[in-house]
């Protein structure tokens, strides 16, 4: 059964977005969606709400069902049950209308290798119809492919194919972009460039749904996330709220990290302790972080351990993700 984090009952639209509850508030709206392959549910009774104008991360480990959900949303495969809409238009009932303003990359972007990038875009523009053909030049410019647009795609690097995939998305002048692992195969500079492009698209009021297992990139790019595992959405909400719920942390530099961990664990004053080479990372429980840091210092001094430094940090998406998934592991 799908559960939505009680700390974040629903995603919050950005300022200026229509209030929730009205038809068309959500760029993506999914209720009770299930897709089975034989006895295995790749997508299991999923509820998902993506507010318009946001960058939304769809996170999960490999095989969690991320790509399957995207394929169902885009009509690449059929669902077994559930309801869904894109930009307020029900799919698959009105798939053509819904996809007219949607751009998407699913899995690794592949194209006709014997054709140039521009020719591939011409084919896709012809399929889209309308004025998509006029968007080819601007899309190539925006993805910085103009110089290589007349080279055959077989000569493109993975990063260039990713950018060509994004250019193909832009042909639709999309209100919604659904990107499956768009950072795959990109070098650090390429990832930075892609991130800037995606943020630029969001700043224009478009919605970007980003499926990824690269937590750091999602944290840098997205406003909100949903965590999926074993086909189910287990948490969903703004990153700041979710990581805030995971609690703050204190990095402790001391003379005897294992001894410090024992001193802090009896009785426990933290929700989590990780021993590092130079000290500890202590995840704090709810309450005053300053008082807890002071208590940590007192306990360590009392135990005869030299404390060289205490540095407060905030929990990152990765920490939260790992805490959620480890909790799941314990439940199982």
């Amino acid at each position, binding site marked *: 059964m799908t559960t939505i984090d009680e700390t974040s009952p629903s995603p919050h639209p950005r300022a200026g977005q229509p209030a929730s509850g009205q038809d068309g508030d959500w760029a993506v709206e999914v209720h009770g969606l299930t897709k089975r392959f034989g006895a295995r549910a790749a997508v299991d009774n999923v509820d998902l709400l993506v507010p318009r104008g946001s960058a939304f991360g769809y996170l999960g480990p490999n095989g969690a069902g991320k790509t399957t959900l995207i394929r169902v949303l885009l009509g690449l495969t059929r669902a077994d049950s559930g309801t869904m809409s894109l930009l307020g238009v029900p799919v698959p009932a009105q798939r053509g209308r819904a*996809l007219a303003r949607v751009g998407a990359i699913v899995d690794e972007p592949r194209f006709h290798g014997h*054709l140039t990038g521009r020719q591939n875009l011409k084919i896709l523009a012809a399929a889209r119809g309308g004025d998509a053909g006029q968007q080819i030049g601007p899309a190539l410019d925006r993805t910085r492919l103009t110089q290589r647009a007349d080279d055959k795609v077989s000569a493109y690097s993975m990063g260039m194919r990713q950018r060509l995939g994004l250019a193909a998305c832009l042909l639709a002048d999309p209100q919604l972009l659904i990107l499956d692992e768009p950072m795959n195969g990109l070098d650090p500079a390429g990832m930075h460039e892609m991130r800037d492009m995606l943020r630029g698209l969001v700043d224009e009021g478009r919605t970007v749904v980003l499926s990824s297992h690269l937590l750091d990139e999602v944290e840098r790019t997205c406003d909100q996330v949903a965590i999926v595992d074993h086909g189910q959405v287990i948490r969903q909400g703004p990153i700041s709220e979710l990581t805030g719920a995971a609690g703050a942390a204190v990095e402790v530099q001391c003379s005897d990290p294992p001894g410090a961990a024992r001193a802090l664990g009896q009785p426990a004053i933290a929700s989590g302790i990780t021993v590092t080479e130079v000290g500890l990372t202590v995840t704090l429980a709810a309450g005053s972080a300053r008082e807890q840091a002071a208590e940590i210092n007192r306990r360590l001094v009392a135990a005869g351990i030299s404390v060289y430094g205490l540095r407060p940090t905030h929990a990152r998406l990765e920490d939260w993700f790992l805490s959620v998934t480890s909790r799941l592991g314990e439940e199982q």
Partner: protein
Amino acid sequence: MTQHSLTAGRALSWLPPVPLIGAKFLDLRKRTVLMIVTVAFTVALPVIFYGIRLLFHLSDPARYAPAGAPNAFATAGTLMDEFGFIVAVALGATAGTADLTDGMFRHLVITGRSRLALYLARIPAGLSVLLPLAAVGFTVSCLVTAFLSSPHAAGAVPPSPGAMAGAGLWLELDLVIAFTVGLGLGSLMGQRTVPVILLIVLEIILTPALATHVLPYFLDGQRLVVGVAMDQLKPAALAGGTRIGPGGGPGLQIPPMPTWAMITVIIGWILGWSAIGAWKMTTRDA
């Protein structure tokens, strides 16, 4: 939000727009190896055939008939038929599978364009590549027959312009059948090699066998093979001056079919395989 029916989405339109046909034409035309083979089997083949005959005739006119002798027209037609069939099947299977194997199918589906329109666009696109080239090759054959023929030396009357036109239409129809069957089977199987092999076996081995041997209790089945029906419609000019059609003729051992039955079989193969290919296209996971 509306409850969806979990059936295929409503298509915007099943008719492919001209730019979409042009896009598929571009894809096929830019496949270098495929185009070389297509030109070789449709244009270069008759040119080389008549060139060799011309050289032989020039070297020893008493021994070798003129390049454009009537029997040469029939032989060239047979060569163009057999090799044209193969290249048409290859072109059809490529048109039916290239988007899938190249990873473009997914991009195309995401555009929201009707899958049926995507499939139907392949038919005029592929035929636009194939039929003009076949027409060029056949025109070479007609010109040589018209201007380099010597009825007395060959001992036969050259085919009339009308007969040559009929032969050309028959050849083009055979290519249309081969292309649409290759397209449908390729789309069904999702790969190119096996459909091409299967259809070559059908054309080269099964069809001649079924056309020349009566199988007891299976005569109607034999008649359902498109090649058998096409053989019975074959113009006299392509049969070496002897018509094999209703009433039978040399080489055709099974009882002749009524003309309406031949036409029904031919249309059935074209529409049937197109329907199968389109069905697979519209239901395939992308």
